[in-house]
């Protein structure tokens, strides 16, 4: 049963920010509501005011610029990203990730900004976007700031957002040369959330050496985490089967998973090791070809 609330529909971002500044902790933001409405119905979220930003078309955009990269407005739906030719060409991993996010119905209504702000450790977009080195743009009536997505989550279901702040866009830098990013989650039904997930981005130098690595583990800790020990193993090396296997083992060790109904802690570590091995290999092979 959803508790009663007062519904507010701002006409633009400025109005939305003024409402948040006025009601602060008393207000929650709804966009697609594909996660929020479920927890409101479960009584886990009770709010006095609900600020509905779903209709803010000024935040519904996908813009690519070869210097700035891709700007995704917060109210852009998952389906818009999934169907975008631009995204498919520049960041195919985002399309592959979206195609397996929940169901078509959820992707039709749910938005990228809402998904990131919901801060579910099992969410699909965050690990991929962190691997792509994305930042989120945050606005408030007092001004704005930009935060690397990697630093956006202080803890489980928490973000660095103040009550008067709103995520307005996600910025993904232009894809660096000779770089490939891949993502895979492990689940029993294709459209479920991942029991664990691994995103890997690798850059290869002209000399065939791994120049940069960003490995992000999803649902392997209270928040999406970088597997930094694993990355160190890769950088500066020419990668081979032995290193892929070692990378998997290291990622399994540096993860901090919990046991739940879906998997034990040990099983999660095992899955992370397997996926990290496969994804580093796949990213390496792709990066060597582009």
């Amino acid at each position, binding site marked *: 049963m959803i508790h009663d609330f007062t519904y507010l*529909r701002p006409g633009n971002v400025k109005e939305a920010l003024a409402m948040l500044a006025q009601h602060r902790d008393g207000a929650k933001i709804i966009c697609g509501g594909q996660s929020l409405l479920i927890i409101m119905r479960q009584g886990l979220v009770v709010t006095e005011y609900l600020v*509905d930003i*779903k*209709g803010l078309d000024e935040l519904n955009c996908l813009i690519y610029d070869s210097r700035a990269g891709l700007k995704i407005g917060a109210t852009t739906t998952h*389906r818009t990203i999934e169907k975008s030719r631009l995204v498919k060409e520049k960041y195919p991993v985002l399309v592959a990730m979206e195609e397996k996010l929940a169901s*078509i*119905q*959820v992707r*039709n209504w749910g938005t990228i900004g809402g998904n990131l702000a919901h801060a579910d450790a099992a969410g699909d977009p965050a690990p991929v976007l962190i691997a792509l080195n994305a930042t989120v743009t945050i606005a408030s009536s007092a001004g704005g700031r930009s935060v690397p997505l990697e630093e956006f989550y202080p803890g489980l279901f928490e973000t660095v957002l103040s009550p008067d702040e709103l995520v307005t866009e996600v910025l993904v830098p232009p894809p660096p040369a000779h770089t490939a990013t891949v993502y895979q989650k492990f689940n029993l039904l294709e459209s479920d959330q991942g029991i664990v997930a691994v995103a890997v981005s690798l850059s290869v130098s002209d000399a065939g050496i791994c120049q940069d690595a960003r490995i992000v583990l999803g649902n392997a800790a209270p928040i999406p985490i970088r597997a930094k020990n694993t990355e160190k193993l890769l950088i500066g090396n020419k990668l081979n089967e032995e290193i892929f296997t070692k990378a998997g083992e290291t990622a399994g060790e540096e993860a901090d998973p919990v046991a739940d109904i879906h998997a034990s802690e040990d099983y999660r570590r095992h899955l992370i090791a397997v996926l990290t091995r496969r994804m580093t290999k796949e990213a390496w092979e792709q990066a060597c070809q582009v």
Partner: protein
Amino acid sequence: MEKQLLRFLVNDQEYELFINPKTLLVEALRDHLGFAGAKRGCDTASCGVCTVMVNGMAVKGCSVLAVQVNGMNITTVEGLEKDGKLDPVQAAFLDEGAFQCGFCTSGMIMSARAFLNETPAPKDTMEIRRGIEGNLCRCTGYNSIVRAIDAVAKGKYREGA
């Protein structure tokens, strides 16, 4: 709590409701307007029996606030029949016996319709299965449903076919 005015089109007919803003789309359709085709199932955006189209897109009516579709165009399963003639998807479901208990049927048909609108010529049955990924059926094992959608895609129900 302040009630909100909601004006929208349901199956090409204009409606105006004055409702509690916490009302879900599926509640507005079923409880306020009597379109009982959209069912309430899991209530957690998992099962898909509440699927309706909003501006042509399949969405889960249990996970959308009714006030969010203000000014929009809703299609429920009741709106598919035109001039006493079933939609091809409905006809195909009958011909293929694509249901047993029938509880998933209206949501399944709405997802199938939205899928075929977007993808009139799916390349294989796997693509059809992906098109109904958001809808659960616990009776049929899906094969008869996929056959029905495939028959429509292959033109079996086209005028003059």
